[in-house]
C-alpha cells in the first residue's frame, strides 16, 4: 500500500459518500418546490403540510451535502496536486463558475426559505425555494462538465512548453457530448432517489394510520412520489442508452469492461452473467442475449463492439507499454448493479401505483416491506453508476492524457493521507448514523400541524416562525 492507493480510496469513499446526499438535495428541492407551488395555487392545506414535512427531511439531508461538498473542492489540490497543475487551466473554470453562479444561489436562497416563512411575502418565499432548486440543479451541470472533460477531453491542446493541458475552446468544454448526456442522466437518477423517499414515507404513514386525518395528504404523496420514480426511471433508461452509445465511441474500453467482452464481436451479444478467469483475460462461462450489446453500443444490431484484448493491444502500441484495462469485475458488476437496483425501484413504484388504483388503500405487508427499502435502491444505483464510470476510466485520470498515478500529490506522505482518510471515514460514519436516525425520527413524526395560532403580540415580541 502506498500514498497513491490511499489517496484513491479516500477519493472514492468521500465522493460516494458525498453523492449519497446530493441526489436527494437535487431532486427533493424541486419536489418540495412543486408541493409549495400547489399549495400557493390551490390553498389546500394538505400541500402546505407536505411542503413543511418533506422540507424538514430535505434540510436534514441538505446540511450533509453542503459540508461534504467542501471536501470535494479542496481534495483536488490536497491529494491530486499534479493533476490540478496539469488541467487547472481547463478544470478550475467550471468549478469556480459552479461556486459563483450556482452555490451562492442555492445557499443564499435556502437560508431565505428556511427562515423566511414570516419575513417574506408568500410569492417571494415560494420563489426562494425555486431559486435554491435551480441553483442546486445548475451546480450539477458545471461539475459534470468538469468530470466529462476527464472522460472525453475536448476544447484543449497540450502545451509542451508549460507541460500542461490548456484551454482552447471553453464552449466545447461546456458542450462536451459526454456532459450533455451525463447531465440529464444524473438528474434523472437524482429524482429517482427523491421520488423514492417521498413514496416510502407516504406509504408507511398511509398503511400504518388508516384513519388519520392526514390520510389524504399521504395518499397524494405516495402517488406523487411513485409517478416521479416512474418518469425519472424512464428518463434514466433513455439517457443511459444514449450514454452507452457515446461511451462506445469515446471510451470503448469502458464499454468492453462493462460487458466483460474480451474479444471484438460483430454482432456482439449482451452478457447477463459472465464469469471470467482469475487473471481476467478470458471468459469461463457466460449467459448472453444475442445482438443486444451491438444495439446498445452502436444502435445497429450487427454493429462491431471492440473487445478488451484488442483495445489493450491498440492502446499499448499507441501510448507505450503498460496495462490500459480497468479492473473488470468492478466495472462488470457495478454496471449491472446500477441497472438492477434502478429497475427494482421502478418496479416497486409500479406496484405502489397499482395497489392504489381507483382510490384503494394498499394492505399487503410485503408491499410495505418492499416500500421501506425503496430509497436504498436508487441510492445504490447512483453509487454504482459513479463507481462504474470512474473505475471504468482507469488507469487514466484524464482519458488518453494523464494516468491516475501521475496526478497524485508528491508532497503528501503516506502518513498524512492515512491520517486524512481515517479522519474522514470516522467522522463520515458517525454523521451517517446521526443523519439516518434523524431522518427516521422526523419521517415517523408525520406531517406537522399547520393551523395558524392567533397572535396579538407586537412584532418585536413575536416568536420567529422558524429558529435553529
Amino acid at each position, binding site marked *: 500500500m502506498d500514498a497513491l492507493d490511499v489517496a484513491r480510496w479516500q477519493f472514492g469513499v468521500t465522493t460516494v459518500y458525498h453523492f449519497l446526499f446530493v441526489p436527494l438535495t437535487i431532486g427533493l428541492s424541486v419536489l418540495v418546490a412543486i408541493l409549495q407551488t400547489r399549495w400557493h395555487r390551490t390553498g389546500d392545506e394538505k400541500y402546505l403540510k407536505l411542503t413543511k414535512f418533506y422540507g424538514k427531511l430535505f434540510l436534514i439531508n441538505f446540511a450533509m451535502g453542503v459540508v461534504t461538498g467542501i471536501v470535494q473542492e479542496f481534495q483536488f489540490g490536497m491529494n491530486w496536486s499534479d493533476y490540478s497543475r496539469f488541467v*487547472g487551466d481547463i478544470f478550475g473554470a467550471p468549478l469556480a463558475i459552479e461556486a459563483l453562479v450556482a452555490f*451562492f444561489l442555492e445557499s443564499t436562497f435556502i437560508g431565505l426559505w428556511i427562515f423566511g416563512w414570516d419575513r417574506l411575502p408568500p410569492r417571494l418565499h415560494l420563489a426562494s425555494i425555486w431559486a435554491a432548486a435551480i441553483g442546486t440543479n445548475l451546480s450539477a451541470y458545471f461539475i459534470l462538465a468538469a468530470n466529462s472533460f476527464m472522460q472525453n477531453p475536448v476544447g484543449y491542446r497540450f502545451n509542451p512548453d508549460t507541460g500542461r493541458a490548456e484551454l482552447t475552446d471553453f464552449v466545447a468544454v461546456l458542450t462536451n457530448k459526454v456532459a450533455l448526456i451525463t447531465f440529464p442522466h444524473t438528474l434523472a437518477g437524482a429524482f429517482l432517489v427523491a421520488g423514492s423517499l417521498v413514496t416510502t414515507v407516504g406509504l408507511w404513514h398511509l398503511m400504518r394510520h388508516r384513519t388519520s386525518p392526514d390520510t389524504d395528504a399521504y395518499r397524494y404523496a405516495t402517488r406523487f412520489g411513485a409517478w416521479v420514480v416512474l418518469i425519472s426511471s424512464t428518463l434514466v433508461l433513455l439517457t443511459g442508452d444514449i450514454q452507452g452509445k457515446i461511451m462506445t465511441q469515446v471510451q470503448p474500453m469502458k464499454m468492453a469492461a462493462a460487458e466483460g467482452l474480451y474479444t471484438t464481436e460483430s454482432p456482439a451479444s449482451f452478457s447477463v452473467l459472465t464469469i471470467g478467469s482469475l487473471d481476467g483475460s478470458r471468459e469461463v462461462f457466460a449467459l448472453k442475449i444475442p445482438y443486444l450489446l451491438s444495439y446498445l453500443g452502436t444502435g445497429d444490431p450487427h454493429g462491431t463492439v471492440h473487445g478488451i484484448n484488442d483495445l489493450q493491444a491498440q492502446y499499448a502500441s499507441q501510448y507505450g507499454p503498460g496495462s490500459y484495462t480497468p479492473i473488470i469485475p468492478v466495472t462488470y458488476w457495478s454496471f449491472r448493479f446500477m441497472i438492477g437496483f434502478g429497475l427494482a425501484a421502478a418496479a416497486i413504484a409500479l406496484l405502489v401505483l397499482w395497489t392504489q388504483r381507483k382510490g384503494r388503500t394498499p394492505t399487503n405487508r410485503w408491499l410495505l416491506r418492499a416500500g421501506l427499502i425503496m430509497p436504498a435502491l436508487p441510492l445504490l444505483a447512483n453509487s454504482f453508476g459513479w463507481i462504474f464510470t470512474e473505475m471504468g476510466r482507469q488507469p487514466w485520470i484524464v482519458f488518453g492524457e494523464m494516468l491516475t498515478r501521475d496526478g497524485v500529490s508528491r508532497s503528501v506522505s503516506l502518513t498524512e493521507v492515512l491520517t486524512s482518510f481515517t479522519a474522514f471515514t470516522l467522522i463520515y460514519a458517525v454523521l451517517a448514523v446521526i443523519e439516518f436516525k434523524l431522518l427516521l425520527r422526523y419521517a415517523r413524526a408525520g406531517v406537522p400541524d399547520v393551523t395558524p395560532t392567533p397572535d396579538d403580540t407586537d412584532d418585536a415580541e413575536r416568536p420567529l416562525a422558524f429558529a435553529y
Partner: protein
Amino acid sequence: MELTTIWFLLVAVLFTGYFILEGFDFGVGMLLPVLGRDDRQRRVLINTIGPVWDGNEVWLITAGGAMFAAFPEWYATLFSGFYLPLLLILLALIARGVAFEYRHKRPEASWKRRWDHAIFWGSAIPALLWGIAFANIFRGVPLDADHEYVGGLLHLLHPYALLGGLTTLGLFLTHGAVFLALKTTGDIRHRAGTLAVRLGLGTAVVAVAFLTWTLTIRSSPAAVVLAASVALALLGALAAARVRREGWAFTGTAVAIALAVATLFAALFPNVMPSTLDPAGTLTATNAASTPYTLTIMTWVAVIFTPIVLAYQGWTYWVFRKRIGVQNIPQH
C-alpha cells in the same frame, strides 16, 4: 491592468469577503459558551447567523475555485503543502455546519451540549488556522524548483505564524461580539458590547505586533499605510462599541479585517507564494497563472455574476435585519 493582476486582486477580494463574513460567524460560534448562559440565549446567538452562515461559507468555495481556475500552480502547491492544517479546517467546518442544522432537532440537553462543542471548536480551529496559513503564505515556505512543498508540519508552526493565528482569532472574536451587539436585544446585546471592547483592545495589541513584524519581512509603501489603517479602524470600532453605536462598530471591525487581509496581499504582490529555499521555486502571479484565454473567460463571468451575487446576498441581510432576543425564540 494585466489579467494576472486583476485575478490576484479578485482572489484577495474573495478571501477578504470570506474573512469578513465568516469571520463574525466564527466569532459567534466561539462566543457561544461565553455569552449564551442558557439554551434560549444560545439559540439567540445561533439564530443571528442562522439564515446567512451557509451563504457566507460559499465565499470560501468561490475563493478556492477562483484560485484553482486562475492560479492552478498556487492552488496545487498551497493545498497539498498545507495538507494537515487544511484537513483540520475541513473537519471543523463539517462538524460546525452540521451542528447548526442538527442542534435543535432533539430536545435532550446532552444532545445540544455535544453540538455546542462542535460549534465552538468548529469555529475556533479555523479562526486560528486561517491566520497561521496566511502568515505562512506571506512569509514563504520551503518550495523546491518544481514549486513542490518540501517542509513538514512543523515548518508551518513558528512564532510569526502563531502570532498571525492569534490575530485572526482575536479579530474574528471581536468582530463576532460586535455583530452580536448589533443583532440582539436586552442582556445579550449589553454583554456582547462590553465584551467586544475588552476583546478588541487585546486584539489591537496582537494585530499591531503581527502587522509590524509583517512589514519587517516584506514591505511596500501601500502596505505601511494599510497596516496603520488597520489599527485606526479597530480603535474606531471600539470607540463606537463603547458608546453603543453598533452599526459603526461593525463597520469598523469589518474594515479592520479587510485592511489586514489587504496589507498581506499588498506586501505579497507580485509573489503569491515565496519560496524560502530555491528562489526559482517562488510562485508569482505570472508563473502560477492560467492562460490569458482562461483568465479572459473567467473575468467576464466574474464581471457579470459578482454584482448579482452581491445584490441578492445583501438583500438577504436586509430581510433579516431585525434584532432578535430570547422573547423571539419559539418553544420548539
